[in-house]
């Protein structure tokens, strides 16, 4: 579970990226985070994962306060950033070993998981190659594998579908579903409404640092007009703020 209580963040330039954010991401559901560019999605994700510190408010992952106990809280989370261009000069296997060392994964477990995840994502053949030689989608897959090695109970995914081929995208969606069915937490951001509509159990819409709506898609439909597509709802929600 992820909770954000009255979280505020204003950048030095005066831009308010989080305005009294209150959000609970329950376990057992795929939770989507939607918003136009510059709405504050990335800021919120950065604060949840410990990259940014909020000006005020409390953020917890599985009840652990990220400000008070950052290392324990970070270990609860598996974070996949939107840009997979990292660790490019490492070989795939070197990157995976590094992540497993940092997240303290026991040797036997990591062998088993590397073998299993790499075969699921069809990455066994490229483990000895440097990430630099990988395509965008392959980089995304290896980053994802690295993040999943420690079996985090909270997944935080920033635009996870971008660049994945249909097969990997389907596989990821399946894994996301499996993850929440085991009673775990999944929080992902997207601007692709179709994706959100198809896989989210619940979603939040953010604009200008404020959460405009939280609930299931049905609830949102009810909340606005019946039978309206999520797209028009989304546009309506964000337009009203203009």
């Amino acid at each position, binding site marked *: 579970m992820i909770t954000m209580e009255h979280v505020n963040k204003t950048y030095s330039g005066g831009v308010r990226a989080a305005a009294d954010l209150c959000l609970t991401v329950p376990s057992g559901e795929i939770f989507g985070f939607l918003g136009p560019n510059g709405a504050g999605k990335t800021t919120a994700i950065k604060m949840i994962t410990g990259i940014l510190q909020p000006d005020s408010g409390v953020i917890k992952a599985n009840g652990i306060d990220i400000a008070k106990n950052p290392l324990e809280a970070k270990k609860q989370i598996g974070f996949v950033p939107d840009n997979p261009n990292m660790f490019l000069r*490492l070989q795939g*296997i070197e990157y995976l070993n590094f992540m497993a060392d940092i997240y303290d994964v026991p040797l036997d477990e990591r062998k088993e998981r590397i*073998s299993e995840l790499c075969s699921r994502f069809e990455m066994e*053949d490229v*483990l*000895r190659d440097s990430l630099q030689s990988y395509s965008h989608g392959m980089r995304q897959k290896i980053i994802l594998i690295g993040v999943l090695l420690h079996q985090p109970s909270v997944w935080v995914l920033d635009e996870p579908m971008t660049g994945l081929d249909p097969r990997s995208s389907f596989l990821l969606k399946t894994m996301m579903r499996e993850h929440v069915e085991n009673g775990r937490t999944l929080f992902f951001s997207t601007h692709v409404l179709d994706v959100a509509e198809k896989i989210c159990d619940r979603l939040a819409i953010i604009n200008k640092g404020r959460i405009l709506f939280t609930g299931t898609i049905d609830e949102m439909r009810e909340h606005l007009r019946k039978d309206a597509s999520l797209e028009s709802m989304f546009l309506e929600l964000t337009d009203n703020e203009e």
Partner: protein
Amino acid sequence: MKNKTLVLTRAMLKNGGGLGFSLKSKWSWALLVLLVVWSIPVVLYGYVQMIAFAYQSLAMIGQEGVLLSWGLVISSFMVFFFGIFHVLSSFYFANDIEHYLPMPIRPRQIVGAKFFVIVLYEYLLIAFVFLPILIFFGIQQGCGVLYYVYGLIGLIFVPILPLALATLLVMLIMRVTNLTRYRELLKIIGGTVAILLGISISLLMQRFADVTPEQISELLLSGNHSLAILQTRVFPTVKWAVQALLNYEIAAGLTNLLVFAGLSGLLFAALLFLAELVYFKGVIGISESSSRRYAVRKGSLDRLVKKRSAIISYLLLEIRLLIRTPVYFLNCVLSNFLWPLILIFSFVVAPSDGDVSGLLGYAKGAINDPGLAGIALGIILAVFAFMSGSNGVAATAISREGQDLYIKHYLPISYRDQIVAKLLSSVVVGYSGVVSLTVPLAVLFGVPLYFTVITLALAFLPLALTSMSGLLLDLLNPKLEWDSEQKAVKQNLNVVFNILFSTVLAGIMVAVTVKLRLNLAWTLVVLPLLLLAACIGLYRLLVTYGVSSFRALEG
């Protein structure tokens, strides 16, 4: 319609020429101009001395003309040598090629444009190597204006032959093999060889200082004119250029010049013809991900999966990046090993009765003299402090993260541990330099084993101290906004500040041992205590102030 080759040349020049450098801001121009204005007179002075010496030696046997061919052959050789790496990186590894491939341009136009860009760059090199020779020779011989005109025209055509040869060689190699996979390795090798070449030349220049002109002319007369023959063997066209310059007053001069220019033009045309045939075949596919792609079997995967502690794993990551990133390797790692190389090389090539040998004897005596051994140790540790402080590993440790710094915020490893791992990376790199300096010198000097062991054991302290100062400087004001790795290390003031710090530190260390005239036993007490105290102080700063700065940094 504009000539496409020229249009391309202009576009490439504006984009930084694909040679790895572009000077966009006025500041970088100003800095470059300042550097050039400051360094040229110094280097030029030594160079002109050498030319004068060579001229004198050759004049004794009436062969002054050989000086011109030497100048041209050396220029050609340098163009050829650097050309190979320039052509590789500009024709095959540069990012701009992918933009040109889909355009309706012929291979010869791309090759021609890229060739022109490199030629322009080579003119700088040739102007520096050959112009002083041309002018010196002209003045000595009292040559007329036509000599200089011929000289300048010749200069324009000089790089064509060697660069065309280099291009042909590279194009043929790339046609049959795919070196793209090794592009980073090639950059590292190219950079290393260039630096080593520079050092060897400057050491050779020093060596020349001990030889008399008579010895040289003797060498030339007895040696089958081997150096003079070189000109016609390696770069045959050079001989026409030399003849043109020597006979500028008669018609033969002009004929030779025309032959030289014509041959160079022909070679260029031949190059373009060949480019049509082979360039695209070698270049298409370079953007494909090149990799080995072999399956990792269950058994071998078990061997590849290893468990290390988080700090060691982080340290390994830092060192891998330092070694595998060409810019980091050349600027941060290689410099550690150059010091030993320069010192050892200068001892090995030094004439047995020169100043260096006297110094060697003195140093040998100092280490073995109980009264002076303390001061010797102080000086050696001070040298280590300076070496480690100037390598930039610690002073760019945060800057090198650049826009990826955010990754280090979400990983569950404490900021203190990250700082320690970064510190260790600097100490490891510095220490390998120290070992590679100390061990050969200890053998060379015949240093007692106990002294060597003490030196190596205490080396950790100055290395740790200068690493901590560098890291602290970089934590307080990192340079995170960069688009090429070059900017993270080369244009980073923290490196300069840490060099200043380590210079002051080295000065203090020497001053303490010399002023107090400490013997070895006292040096072993005083210096380590002082360094240890400073280390503890800086470490406290790092884990308090440094950690909070790290946490507050937004990548």
